[in-house]
């Protein structure tokens, strides 16, 4: 088996958390190597700037790896899952295709056991994470408006908010009439030039890659900076096993390179950043002497407690033509009116809403991916004229409480293109989550009607909506009930860390990437601070 230059720190996965950790450790002088199964993206390939973009969004740039089917994607058996997991495999990871909606979790999210008697409390508080939110906001280039009364007072985002448009104004006025919260959205999308990057020019295709580079993705915001400091990023490298030495410490990983050659990469410290499905898969693949059920799995919780934020959509059709094919697509306006627990609603916790134009060009209006049906004949033309440029949507999702039966396992027969066992996902939407969604979409329909919608279509739950993958290697102080400690270090292997969304104790009810990045930076700071105490293989 071929070898490569030993590293201080080896990171598996070049997405959001891998990028944050890689840059921080490179800045601290560590010799960092990252193995990424995907490739670098060329923004010239992003389809938003081409006529065919809506077709490309359905296939090559789909967020579903089973639809995309690129060689670097691994298959996922989700036949027994209520929600299909979505992701992107490449430098930047799923930040390439995310919407850039960048809310923070709320203080209550860290204390759901104490406040609501469900789930578990996190081993850290909102206040402890806040400084890291501030720092990653600056690294990514976040646009937003301070002062949202749904949150404790916080620093100004580095950039002013993106426009909310006439459509956002309409919804804002409606919420003021209803007495409901609203606030301009926070986005990891530049509203002004920032650190050498150009601002948003409204391509309206954020979720197929930003041609302008205005949307933060770690292939732009972190890896070039880390590489400039000496970090090595090896693409086309599919890691399939973490190797332990005789002392029980990790000595490195085995991977298959782009030519199909089996290789070993050694390091003093191994950091897993492959998302909550990829990381769980790798830990399970790494079963070995002393770890018969998967590496660092003495608790039996590796792969369990998978959370994916079931997602509903409410779409309003308005008489006004809002030119909804333009502008950023993630969030114009957000609403946290129904986020916190209220006793008489019949569920605990609540939902967060993001209002955005119903994205896409005329193909999406004719062939809706969310609410609405295909209509043919002469009426087709009337319907497209009614819809195209006239539709706004509330995306609604909420707390997805952990359940040990929701899990990632290794599939007995499915393999990736390198012959490595693929993951199988079992996931059921809980009754509490269904009630949160039902309540949320009903209120969101009221919102759009109040804002002037002449027609409201509801998709109570979208199956292809598993953008937020969390919880399969939860953090905690007790090795019997958690996989990693409050600093991301696995309880059972002292030099093995997990830094991605796997460590989430509960899901919160907001888009998780902001929190994933803040946690990753906190873990990396700790690695730097404790470097002299870190045991490493001989």
């Amino acid at each position, binding site marked *: 088996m071929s070898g490569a230059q030993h590293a201080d720190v080896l990171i598996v996965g070049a997405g959001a958390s891998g990028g944050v950790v890689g840059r921080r450790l490179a800045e601290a002088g560590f010799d960092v190597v990252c193995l990424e199964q995907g490739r670098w993206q060329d923004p010239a390939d992003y389809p938003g700037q081409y006529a065919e973009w809506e077709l490309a969004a359905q296939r090559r740039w789909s967020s579903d790896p089973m639809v995309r089917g690129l060689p670097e994607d691994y298959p996922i058996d989700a036949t027994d899952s209520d929600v299909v997991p979505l992701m992107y495999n490449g430098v930047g990871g799923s930040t390439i295709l995310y919407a850039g909606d960048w809310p923070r979790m709320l203080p*209550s999210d860290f204390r759901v056991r104490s406040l609501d008697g469900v789930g578990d409390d996190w081993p850290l508080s909102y206040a402890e994470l806040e400084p890291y939110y501030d720092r990653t906001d600056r690294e990514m280039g976040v646009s937003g408006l301070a002062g949202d009364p749904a949150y404790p007072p916080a620093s100004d985002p580095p950039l002013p908010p993106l426009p909310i448009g006439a459509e956002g104004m309409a919804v804002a006025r409606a919420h003021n009439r209803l007495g409901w919260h609203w606030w301009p959205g926070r986005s990891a999308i530049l509203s002004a030039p920032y650190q050498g990057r150009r601002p948003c020019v409204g391509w309206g295709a954020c979720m197929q890659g930003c041609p*302008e580079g205005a949307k933060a993705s770690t292939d732009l915001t972190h890896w070039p900076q880390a590489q400039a400091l000496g970090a090595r990023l090896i693409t086309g490298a599919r890691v399939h096993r973490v190797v332990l030495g005789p002392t029980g410490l990790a000595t490195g990983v085995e991977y298959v390179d782009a030519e199909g050659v089996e290789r070993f990469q050694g390091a003093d410290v191994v950091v897993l950043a492959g998302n909550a499905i990829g990381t769980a898969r790798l830990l399970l693949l790494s079963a070995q002497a002393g770890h018969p059920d998967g590496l660092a799995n003495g608790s039996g919780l590796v792969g369990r407690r998978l959370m994916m934020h079931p997602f509903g959509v409410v779409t309003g059709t308005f008489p006004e033509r809002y030119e909804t094919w333009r502008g950023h697509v993630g969030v114009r306006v957000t609403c946290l009116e129904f986020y916190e627990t209220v006793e008489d609603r019949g569920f605990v916790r609540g939902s967060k809403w993001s209002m955005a134009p119903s994205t896409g060009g005329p193909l999406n209006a004719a062939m809706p991916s969310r609410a609405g049906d295909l209509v043919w004949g002469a009426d087709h033309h009337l319907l497209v004229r009614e819809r195209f440029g006239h539709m706004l949507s509330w995306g609604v999702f909420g707390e997805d409480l952990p359940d040990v039966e929701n899990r990632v396992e290794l599939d007995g027969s499915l393999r990736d293109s390198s012959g490595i066992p693929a993951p199988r996902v079992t996931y059921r939407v809980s009754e509490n989550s269904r009630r949160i969604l039902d309540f949320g979409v009903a209120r969101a329909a009221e919102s759009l009607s109040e804002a002037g919608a002449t027609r409201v279509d509801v998709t109570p739950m979208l199956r292809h909506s598993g953008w937020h993958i969390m919880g399969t290697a939860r953090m905690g102080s007790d090795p019997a009930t958690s996989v990693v400690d409050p600093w991301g270090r696995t309880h059972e292997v002292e030099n093995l860390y997990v830094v991605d969304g796997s460590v989430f104790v509960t899901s919160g009810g907001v888009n998780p990437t902001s929190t994933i990045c803040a946690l990753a930076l906190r873990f990396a700071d700790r690695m730097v601070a404790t470097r002299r105490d870190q045991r490493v293989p001989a």
Partner: protein
Amino acid sequence: MTFSWGSAPPPPAPVDDGARSRLAAIADVLLPEAHGMPAASRVGVAEEQLDRVLHARPDLTLPLLEALAAVDPDAGEAALATLAEASPAGHGALVVVVLAGYYWSEQVKALLGYPGQTAAPVSTAFPAYVQEGLLDPVLERGEIYRRPPD
């Protein structure tokens, strides 16, 4: 995926004249001339637009050909329902080919007032919602988050 932006027209797709005729016929049932919009065949859905779509999505070619062999254009919209049941992949390909070809037409885009995706700087001028005082009632309510015991 191969993009056609700024490049020469794509080569003809491997769909023979008979299949193109059937496509034109069923496409006109789905998208007839009405309400100021042209029929699908009039904007080349079975001709140059088909070549563009299949150039971008060659994976659609086989299911489309299977669909065209199975569908009876004379059966009208019912043919599509029958096809959806017998061959979901063929039905999906036929729908995408007809709609994508239609809505890529410059004539159709112009009729809809759609310029395509374009780039224009966003404005961060003093927001109108601040000028209008829309945030005032939100702020006047005060904080709405719960404070944990710690």
